[in-house]
């Protein structure tokens, strides 16, 4: 019954999905934190930039962003991200697009987290003479991160599912493989069940484990 799977690199496709997820997650965590710092910081221009970035990116379909990295950045502006083979270029472009998109949601989650940190914490830090970068990095952000594990987990799970959009620029991940298999094989329900099972395996444990972590690290108040 599962014979036809031998012709396809199912594990390879899901491995690509995992790679896309992990690398974009790291990227968007960093970029999202920077954006959040800009949005709560003392420099008005950076605040404006952060707000504009989040509002534009959040309201753009991910598909448009991903297609734009390929057609705009690569094909028109000539950015190839240090690779010559299109398979590798597209993979890296997809990570870039996913990072740019997901960072906006990370930023918003973090900003909400920063607001949950009691005012006294920052005031006490300032009273000690800490500068804004110190207040943020030593006192506020560590507490904020612990309170937003839940929302960030949801962003991560959404990111896992969003990696399927990379199919639009031909990255050989799970959704593209599914489309190819359906075109060539007759077992529609079986193929769909296998792919669905793969995603459930990726997203459900993430949710459960990080949900447990979130409760564990939450600041009790």
């Amino acid at each position: 019954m599962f014979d036809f799977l031998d012709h396809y690199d199912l594990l390879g496709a899901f491995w690509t999905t995992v790679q896309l997820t992990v690398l974009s997650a790291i990227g968007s965590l960093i970029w999202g934190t920077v954006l959040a710092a800009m949005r709560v910081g003392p420099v008005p221009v950076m605040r404006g930039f952060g707000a504009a970035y989040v509002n534009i990116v959040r309201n753009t379909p991910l598909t448009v962003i991903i297609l734009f990295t390929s057609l705009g950045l690569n094909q028109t502006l000539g950015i190839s991200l240090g690779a010559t083979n299109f398979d590798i270029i597209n993979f890296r472009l997809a990570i870039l697009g996913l990072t740019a998109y997901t960072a906006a949601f990370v930023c918003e989650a973090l900003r909400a987290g920063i607001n949950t940190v009691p005012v006294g914490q920052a005031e006490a830090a300032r009273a000690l003479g800490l500068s804004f970068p110190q207040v943020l990095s030593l006192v506020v952000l560590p507490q904020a991160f612990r309170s937003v594990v839940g929302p960030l987990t949801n962003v991560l799970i959404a990111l896992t599912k969003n990696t399927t959009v990379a199919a639009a620029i031909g990255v050989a991940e799970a959704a593209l493989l599914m489309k190819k298999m359906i075109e060539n094989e007759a077992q529609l329900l079986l193929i769909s069940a296998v792919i669905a099972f793969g995603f459930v395996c990726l997203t459900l444990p993430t949710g459960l484990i990080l949900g447990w972590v979130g409760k564990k690290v939450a600041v009790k108040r």
Partner: protein
Amino acid sequence: MKLRKVTAATAVVLALAVSATACGKDDKKDGGSSGGKKIKIGIKFDQPGLGQKTPQGYTGFDVDVATYVAKELGYNADQIEWKESKSMDRETMLQRGDVDFIAATYSINDEREKKVDFAGPYLLAHQDVLVRADDNSIKSPEDLNSKKLCSVTGSTSAQNVHDKLAPKANLQEYPTYSACLTGLQNKAIDALTTDDSILAGYASQAAFKGKFKLGGLKMTNENYGIGVKKGSDLKAKINTALEKMVADKSWQQAVDKNLGPANYKNEPAPKIGNIVK
């Protein structure tokens, strides 16, 4: 009462979206019922020179052939209902009767002949490459191995390159050909590969005059036929119409008009039923 206002505002937003939907549907119905006797023909909507949707209507060689055939079958141009038939949908559209016939760069092959019947062929095309006008480095299919190629996701042309013509070529696949052209123009892509007729159509566009040329590699033979439902009596009638079109020179005129500007040297009109393997 404040809450009511807010609820109402939300309802208005939803209602607006729905009414936009409703408008769309009404338009379609009006178009369908006013014409009386209609013939439904499947073409491509995004291939200049062959089948293209433009603000002025539908244009291209496939469109001209289909219009001529329809006239021979007793339908005027205003009785034709054009439908978009994407490559992957063509067999199903015929089997279900969504369209009466399809003229959409439809190559005759054994696998397709199992599912549908073909009238024609009406054009012999070859898989070829489109390159920038100043690029002379591609003289044979082997030269493609060191090049950056572009084609449409899942197309036979892409598979041919991958499987036999140039397995080492660096192949970029996009959902559409026009996306490839952007890269070709900007030197991110060296060659766009698919049937020479399609390539000629792109190269003939006003915006690209003098910028691109065909490689002339003739890598495969593609016999374009007009697809009809299996066992349909239309096949014989369409064949007669195609023969007449070649005989009264309208065929050559249509080729020159649609594909000529790109310096595309077409094969002579194929004989009906003569499929070049």
